[in-house]
């Protein structure tokens, strides 16, 4: 999407009426209207970003992500033992990641792609914003709970990796079914934690939920998946399907 603000030269210097307004300091109603119009245009990027986020249901996404944090906090009110204490946060993390992945979907499809020059930037911003909200919600829930098994680093690693899987799934099959990625991985993670408890550990770093918090390989794998997911969605966006 191209944005050009009349009244501003390259570098942001005022020209024309705007320059006259800036130099004389006298304010007429016409000049005030012009000033307001220019200010509005200067803030167009903000409006664009807001419209983009609104089209991705950001308020709903934020509510859902905060809801995941609240659900985790409520669940941690009870005492969870054995491997269930690690599986429970993983379920909340997978739910948050699936919401982030689904939020990448566009209601406009191809028309938006052929007209939106700033689309990659907007995609990057929205994904990072949603990720930040998800992490904040879960970390606050963990910090205020009596005991979060695995700790904050575990939440950080798992959530980032799951979001990466969701974004990759969004690019592969479209945002509508992208939740299958993190939720499918949830089953694998739950099994890995079960295996840890029953003496059948899965040692692959790519199954990071089953690895200890300070396992560098697992942290690296989760980070790589997150970066790959963000990069792919930023560059290509979610896959468009005919029936969407």
């Amino acid at each position, binding site marked *: 999407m191209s944005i050009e603000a009349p009244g501003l030269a390259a570098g942001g210097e005022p020209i024309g009426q705007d320059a006259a307004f800036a130099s004389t300091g006298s304010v007429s109603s016409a000049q005030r209207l012009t000033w307001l119009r220019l200010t509005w245009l200067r803030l167009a990027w903000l409006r664009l970003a807001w419209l983009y986020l609104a089209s991705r249901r950001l308020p709903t996404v934020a509510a859902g992500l905060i809801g995941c944090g609240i659900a985790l906090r409520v669940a941690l009110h009870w005492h969870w033992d054995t491997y*269930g204490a690690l599986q429970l946060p993983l379920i909340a993390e997978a*739910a948050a990641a*699936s*919401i982030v992945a*689904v939020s990448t979907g566009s209601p406009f499809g191809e028309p938006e792609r052929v007209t939106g020059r700033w689309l990659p930037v907007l995609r990057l911003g929205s994904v990072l914003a949603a990720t930040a909200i998800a992490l904040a919600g879960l970390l606050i829930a963990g910090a205020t709970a009596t005991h979060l098994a695995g700790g904050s680093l575990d939440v950080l690693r798992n959530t980032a990796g799951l979001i990466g899987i969701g974004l990759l799934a969004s690019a592969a099959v479209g945002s509508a079914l992208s939740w*299958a990625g993190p*939720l499918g991985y949830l*089953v694998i993670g739950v099994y890995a934690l079960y295996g840890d408890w029953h003496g*059948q550990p899965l040692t692959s770093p790519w199954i990071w939920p089953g690895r200890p918090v300070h396992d560098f390989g697992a942290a690296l794998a989760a980070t790589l998946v997150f970066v790959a997911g963000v990069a792919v969605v930023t560059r290509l966006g979610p896959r468009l399907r005919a029936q969407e």
Partner: protein
Amino acid sequence: MTVGTAPIASAPIRPARSRTGLAAGRLLRLEFKRNAMIWLIPVAVGLFWFDCYRQSVAEPAMWNLRTMNMQGQALLDFVPSVVGAAAWMGSREARRGLTDLTGITARPRWFRQLAVWAATTGWALAAYAGCMAVLYGMTAHQAHWGGPLLWPATVAAVGLPALAAVGFAIGTAWPSRFTAPLAVVVVFFALGLSSQFARGSSSYFQVSPGLSGANDVGPDPSIATFYHYLPDLPIAQVMFLVGLTVAVLAAIGIPAGSGGQWLRRSAAILTACGLAAAGTAVYLTGTARLDVHGMIAIPALHDAASNRPIRYTPVCARTAIPVCLNPAYAAYLADVRTALAPALSELAGLPGAPASISQAATIFHQEQANQVLINGGNLRIVKGRGGRQSMALVLPDQLPGEPSSPVYTNDDFIVQIYELSPPLIDRVISGTRRRRLGVAALTGPDAEQAVIIGLVTAARTATLTRIIRQANMIQVAPDVPSSLAIISAGRPPGGQLPQVRLPAGVQAAAGRFAALPAATRHAWLVGHLSALRAGRITLAQLP
């Protein structure tokens, strides 16, 4: 023939019922073609392979272990795909703003919704059937004996339509792009957690399809091996799942706009019937109890014919005293032979020695909460005629190869079975008449004690030598027993074994007796056992 005289071609008039059936078929075909479940089948199959299949085939090749383990796992593996796809399809009309448009079509809305659910369920069942075929085929190829347990597979199969119905109802009620993932999380959490609440064998939560048996017993090699797999709990679970499916699907047809008045009334009646069936199943599950063979029996659903033991032809080891096992355990016959053969060679032909040893079923007893007493790994007298007695061998309830922490190896298994030898030797040499062989007493004369210790030492040396030879090790230096602890079978409840020092004379005589050739020992025992029991032989008279 002119145009005017040519007969007018007209399509034959079909009965209305036939056209309705064709239209329903076309609708169903369209829904099968446009269903989101198609895209999610790879996810379901992949998860099944990674989780359920790998976990099941990691178990020993016994039908009961593999199929009972599969039931809950398979359902959890299919939750993301089935519930997600059903929720997504359920919210389709509202998400695309087609509710009003489709509301004026000839078919009632409920009818169309059921077609969508049926298509989603159909794809899920097709994928599940493929997965089951591979798992059961592999088990049939590897198992030594027995046939497939169909009830666990049936419960999981009936669970899939229920999962789809729940997901579909959630999607219909809250149409949003976020509904599907949240529905998956909620159902996954509920299904995974439901079985954890089961406490004891009379818990209502056993109706959860995640459980294939008593919660704290789980898949056990003895279950459904000696006695038929009890279908009581599976029947209750199927009743619950069918009731739930009917109730949920019928409830979708109740709101205004779902169809005509009679259709909505029918839906309401069906909802009530479904709830009644599900409630009855829950109630029946609450009346269950753990039977002695480790399975859940529900009196109202129990068939007494299921209590009859399964007939089988045992597999036997060529030991001095024959040891026979259930053919399902054929893979472990060599281990049992390694563990018991040395002791049985020493005892064969002696007065009071058993004529044969046959495997018997494990006995289960429900304790408080989820605690279950499993009477595995022991020997007991089952019948006696003129001093020639048979013995029942109950193998440990854990088998080598079963996933465990720490890893339970064949050597662990052999050593655990070997520990049954000392009480057996003690019983035959001392001539006691105890039916159960627990901790050996060693209350007889010194010479008798020395002979028992000597035989135990010889048997232990032979067993350990065989284990180490199997492991390709070069040398063995087994300990010479010096206390009562080594001739005990199992640990007494709640404490360490008593460490009783034997007199030096007894130890020396035992060592001397153990060092004799096996044939010499045996010949001496045949000739002197009566005198030994009567206390007429001193330590100095021992060879």
